């Protein structure tokens, strides 16, 4: 390589990054995966050992063809790393069992090197025990632990020993395997914990879940399940509970801010909050148009009474958005309507609120908000004892009424309806025949996959050390995946359309007046009923094809890692050849198994 021409450049073109302090280089490399960090040793002599004193570690098994290779890398990395350098942070992402050797190895290493920030992402397979070593550290300050799937895995159920920890976030943690626990206390040794976040945390097989944290100020719990949640956290200021299921919440009396959102009101312990500033309550029920039942209304009022000392109160008029996303059903429940629906419940109740400054009725994005009315009783219940409080409920204007269509004569209407039904029924038949003729997607998917495997086998045989050889198989795998999914998706669209057509014909028939229905239904009901089993069969076949494609995709995702993407990798692949013989053996077994 000829660098002579560089020597004539002025001095300002010196090796700028190399002249930067190690600290800065480490910071720049901190977001990169450790394998790529080590590969920077090729850059220049100065870089040969720069990686060995990186205080930020980032291991991910996603960058390795298989777990043994990943494990080997970790062992070498830790053995070659400068043992004098402490580990400031570790991000560890891996799949498979938590009991694997490398997990323990990494845990031992980082805990012995005064780790401060730990971020673990796991993709667990079965009930595997997590090394207890991960749950004990004198130095750890921030811990983020999450699992991709809600599979139960074993983590220590005795209090985790993190005396220096200030911030903890857990996601998808499930305690299900053991129903004998009556009480569970994980955090009482985290004496300095200030921020705790639990998401998708299931402890509903435990009778009482304790959060005993002397310094905790902020707690956020979302989409989690408990029976009784017991907060022994005297410093807690901010509590957020969203879409959780719990029978009872024992909250500390010193709380100043409570945000609650969920399907049912929360049963709060009768502690007598003395410092409440802000309370937000959003309720929603996802059973469409179900009226507020009396029991729930009573609980709602109980909940409001528990928070009577608050100064700012915000209640919703709308649905909770997350429910809308999940169920996609119009949720018809207006919180204020709860109070308005049972005026009897509150008629003789004096307003529990003693010191309100502001009440805000949150309208969010409800389409029918303009219809909302708040009864005098409800208003009185909220504001009776706080005459100077501000009441905010900005209702939108009603949309302009729809212009009425002139009525058509019944005879004309009937003829039109019958023609429409006949039309849709014909289309339904045509669709059925088309889907029938397109069946066999699964076989086509299999063929595409087999052809690809054959091509890859040939490519492997002719593989040489030139790097462009990797690009072609990658491109082919990608193209094959696209082709497979195009076939599956086309079939899906057709099948869905078929079912939609059938439903349409059915519902049009159902909507007809009795007499007309009797007149026309026999023409279609036989065919519709007859098509049932066949359509079910077609649907099952489609699901099976989709599953097959899914399985191939997972396999190919793994397969593609054997062909490094030289177009994006910052370091060309090693000169060593992929071991074509061993991968071939797996390929052919896989195909035979199908």
């Amino acid at each position, binding site marked *: 390589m000829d660098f002579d021409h560089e020597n004539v450049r002025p001095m300002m073109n*010196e090796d700028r990054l190399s002249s930067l302090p190690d600290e800065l280089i480490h*910071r*720049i490399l901190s977001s990169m995966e450790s394998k790529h960090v080590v590969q920077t040793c090729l850059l220049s002599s100065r870089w040969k050992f720069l990686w060995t004193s990186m205080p930020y570690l980032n291991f991910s098994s996603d960058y390795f063809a298989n777990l043994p290779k990943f494990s080997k890398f970790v062992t070498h990395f830790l053995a070659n790393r400068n043992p004098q350098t402490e580990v400031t942070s570790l991000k560890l992402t891996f799949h498979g069992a938590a009991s694997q050797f490398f997990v323990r190895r990494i845990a031992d290493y980082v805990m012995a090197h005064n780790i401060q920030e730990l971020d673990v992402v796991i993709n667990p397979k079965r009930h595997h025990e997590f090394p207890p070593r991960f749950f004990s550290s004198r130095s750890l300050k921030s811990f983020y632990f999450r699992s991709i799937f809600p599979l139960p895995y074993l983590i220590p159920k005795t209090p985790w020993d993190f005396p220096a920890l200030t911030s903890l976030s857990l996601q998808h943690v499930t305690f299900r395997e053991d129903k004998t626990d009556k009480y569970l206390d994980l955090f009482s040794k985290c004496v300095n914990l200030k921020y705790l976040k639990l998401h998708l945390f299931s402890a509903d097989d435990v009778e009482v879940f304790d959060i005993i944290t002397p310094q905790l100020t902020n707690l956020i719990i979302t989409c989690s399940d408990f029976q009784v949640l017991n907060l022994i956290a005297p410093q807690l200021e901010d509590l957020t509970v969203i879409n959780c299921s719990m029978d009872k919440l024992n909250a500390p009396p010193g709380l100043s801010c409570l945000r609650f959102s969920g399907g049912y009101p929360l049963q709060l312990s009768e502690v007598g909050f003395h410092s409440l500033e802000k309370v937000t309550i959003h309720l929603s029920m996802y059973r469409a148009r179900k009226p507020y039942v009396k029991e729930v209304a009573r609980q709602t009022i109980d909940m409001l009474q528990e928070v009577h000392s608050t100064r700012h109160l915000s209640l919703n008029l709308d649905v909770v958005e997350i429910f809308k996303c999940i169920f996609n059903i119009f949720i018809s429940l207006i919180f204020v309507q709860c109070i308005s629906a049972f005026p009897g419940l509150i008629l003789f109740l004096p307003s529990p609120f003693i010191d309100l400054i502001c009440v805000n009725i949150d309208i969010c994005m409800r389409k029918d908000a303009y219809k909302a009315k708040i009864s005098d009783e409800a208003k009185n219940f909220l504001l009776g004892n706080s005459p100077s409080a501000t009441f905010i409920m900005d209702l939108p204007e009603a949309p302009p009424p729809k212009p009425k269509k002139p009525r058509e004569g019944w005879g004309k209407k009937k003829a039109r309806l019958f023609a429409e039904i006949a039309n849709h029924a014909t289309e339904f038949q045509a669709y059925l025949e088309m889907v029938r003729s397109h069946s066999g997607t699964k076989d086509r998917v299999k063929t595409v996959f087999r052809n690809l495997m054959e091509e890859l086998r040939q490519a492997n045989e002719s593989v040489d050390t030139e790097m462009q050889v990797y690009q072609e198989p990658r491109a082919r795998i990608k193209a094959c995946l696209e082709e497979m999914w195009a076939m599956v998706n086309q079939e899906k669209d057709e099948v869905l359309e078929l079912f939609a057509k059938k439903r349409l014909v059915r519902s049009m028939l159902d909507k007809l007046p009795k007499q007309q229905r009797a007149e026309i239904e026999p023409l279609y009901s036989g065919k519709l009923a007859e098509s049932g089993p066949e359509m079910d069969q077609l649907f099952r076949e489609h699901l099976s094809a989709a599953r097959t494609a899914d399985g191939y995709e997972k396999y190919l995702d793994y397969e593609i890692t054997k062909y490094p993407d030289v177009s994006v990798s910052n370091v060309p692949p090693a000169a060593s050849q992929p071991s074509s013989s061993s991968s071939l053996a797996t390929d052919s077994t896989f195909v035979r198994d199908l």
Partner: protein
Amino acid sequence: MSKKTLTLMSKDKQLFNIEEHLAVQSVTIRNMVKEDGASSVIPLPRVDSETLALVIEYLNRQQAPEEDEDYVKKFVDERGEIPTLLELAQAALDLDIKKLMDAACMKVADLIKDFTLEEVREALRIENDRTPEEEKAIRDEFQWAF
């Protein structure tokens, strides 16, 4: 009552004024102020005037704390040239302004993440002082990482 102002001097002897309460976001300046009550001019012999102007612009931002993360990201995004970012990161390191340093470093990392080895060398002006044979030897030494 007027707020107290500090004067910073860049490598090329340009002077910049900044209010003290903003300047002390830099831990280095905060310590200097504490030690000697901040004499009239604080010299920053390693920071050139262009970079110092950027640092001052950053320190002068009027952002609510909750928008600060987004602001600093946008701030470095708009100065997406690697040499500028490296100067900025170096200055932020010297002045101990952690958020700015982290953001500048992350931006550089983001820009070079898809580069090939040769492109990284070029972008960061690293001179390859090894022969292909030596490079091969390094590859063999760390073959477990390739």
